[in-house]
């Protein structure tokens, strides 16, 4: 398994505040990974560190084995990046945006760009500022893809889009992935749309990684169990409880476990990915690091 992105003890501090802390994760090549967490969790910081827009305060980040800030050109040539709010030169025409890409990127592929824009019916002569939000996001994606990247980083690419534009954007992304050879890491504070697209998940909350792994493995290692409240301690003693919700007599626990749960008093279900994510995002920071460590290598 070759590695697209690897971070080791990575942290970034702004003044006295840590935007990202103690982040160790591996994104294997070929994955489409969702980076999920609430606003301010450090998702943008992680992506900016990966592309070299930001430098680590501590730790290391490597993209295909290179450090983005020590060997910027090696990394930049292989990484496509769509920043939050997909910034574009609003006064430029679409054709001028392509010209910029052509001039600044040795691996630039005009055919890729023109084909995609044609498929999306985005006119080359149009000023970028006059395009709809969805079209602007598409242009930003086209610019990133025409670099023929091996790793594509997208920061909240669909957050500002309406549901239709969101679906179209993700469709474009899936088309690009289907063409092969691409690893994707995209951040979002909502999971709903990403579940169809992604096969790998990283949960980031309060500047730390809480869970990282292939979605299949994550789902396989979590169970949602419901049973009498007075015996909940029995489950907690044997399994790692990520989140517990209690009503008067009943408890619902989301547990991270490798073993089967064979207590007849308890109903065992496979949780949805959303339930798992919400459970991790809902838990207090202090108890969060333990399950992370165990599941980091679950792929």
């Amino acid at each position: 398994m070759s590695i697209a992105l690897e971070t080791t003890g990575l942290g970034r501090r702004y003044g006295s505040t840590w935007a990202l802390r103690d982040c160790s994760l591996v994104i294997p090549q070929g994955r489409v990974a969702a980076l999920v967490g609430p606003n301010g969790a450090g998702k943008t910081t992680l992506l900016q560190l990966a592309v070299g827009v930001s430098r680590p305060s501590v730790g290391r980040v490597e993209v295909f084995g290179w450090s983005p800030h020590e060997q910027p050109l090696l990394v930049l040539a292989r990484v496509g990046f769509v920043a939050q709010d997909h910034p574009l030169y609003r006064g430029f025409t679409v054709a001028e945006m392509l010209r910029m890409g052509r001039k600044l990127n040795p691996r630039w592929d005009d055919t890729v760009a023109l084909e995609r824009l044609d498929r999306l019916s985005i006119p080359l002569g149009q000023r970028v500022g006059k395009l709809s939000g969805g079209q602007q996001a598409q242009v930003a994606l086209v610019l990133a893809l025409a670099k023929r990247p091996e790793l594509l980083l997208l920061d909240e690419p669909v957050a500002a889009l309406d549901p239709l534009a969101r679906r179209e954007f993700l469709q474009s992304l899936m088309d690009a992935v289907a063409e092969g050879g691409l690893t994707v890491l995209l951040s979002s504070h909502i999971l709903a749309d990403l579940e169809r697209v992604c096969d790998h998940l990283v949960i980031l909350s309060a500047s730390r990684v809480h869970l990282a792994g292939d979605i299949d493995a994550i789902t396989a290692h979590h169970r949602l169990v419901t049973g009498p409240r007075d015996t909940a301690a029995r489950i907690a003693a044997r399994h790692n409880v990520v989140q517990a919700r209690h009503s008067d007599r009943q408890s619902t626990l989301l547990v991270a476990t490798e073993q089967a749960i064979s207590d007849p008093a308890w109903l065992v279900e496979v949780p949805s990915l959303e339930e798992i994510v919400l459970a991790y995002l809902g838990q207090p920071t202090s108890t969060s690091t333990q399950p992370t460590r165990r599941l980091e290598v679950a792929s």
Partner: protein
Amino acid sequence: MTWLTWRQQRLEALLGAAVMAALAAVLVITGRHIAAAYDHARLAACSLGHAQPNSCGDNVLHFTARFSSLVNLTTWLNMVPLLIGILVAAPIVLEFEHGTHRLAWTQTITRRRWLGTRLTLAAAAAIAAALAFTLLMTWWRGPFDHLAGRFDTGAFDFEGAVPIAYTLFAASVVLAVGTVLRRTLPAIAVGLVSFLVLRLGIEGWIRYQHYLAPLHKTWPVGTPAPAGEATGYITSNGLTFTGPPGAGRQMIQACNVTYTDPRSLQGVSACLRHHHALQYAIYQPASRFWTFQAIEAGIFLALSLILVATTIWWVNHRLT
């Protein structure tokens, strides 16, 4: 990268070029007019501090009075370096404000090269525009400078090296403040205020008083003034007296120094000379023009360098 920089600064460049062209047109038209009047009145022989034909006095007075309001208007052109500075720096700051620098930095180009190209081209444009402005103003002011020297503020501020230094300073302030704040309008506001404070402060309280100590000279009434006094910058001048206290007043009464009748001036002068009165002046001689230009340009260029260095450091270490 050059194409991208040009494409991004195109609007500002064209706006600046249009303003400069309009200004040049006005200056060329009025300047030709001034030069014609100057030739017509045969003022070439009337430079201050030299022996002058008798015809000079009235002709010079008439010439300067005729164009004084026009010359006063040029005071407003002190804002031209600020304008040029804003026009070259604002597009870079706008990029940080809109976040589009993240688009540029994630193409296959290093941040160092991106910043280097942007700063080099901005500086080149600023210097070219400021140089054109300097040359134009120096030509326009030629007749006035020939008559009265170019050490006074109305000439000093537009000639030599200082307009370029002022321009680079204005651009650097807007750039540095804008890079830190990532806001264009506040950066321009800070640029405007610091430009005015520094320019007026130095001009009013530092340049003529402290760059070099002013000369104190006295000479007998009726003998020529020291070289470079009349065309230099005069802080104060007048009559001074040797002798017991009260001698001056007695002498002024004796010689009837009232200046009411110009024809009596020669008689007054002879009388003062007879009483051994001296003329005095505290002044910066005209020969110090380039020294002062170098000091003033040096101050503004040093500040610009500090601001640009701050910008580069901030972009490399703090900006994401």
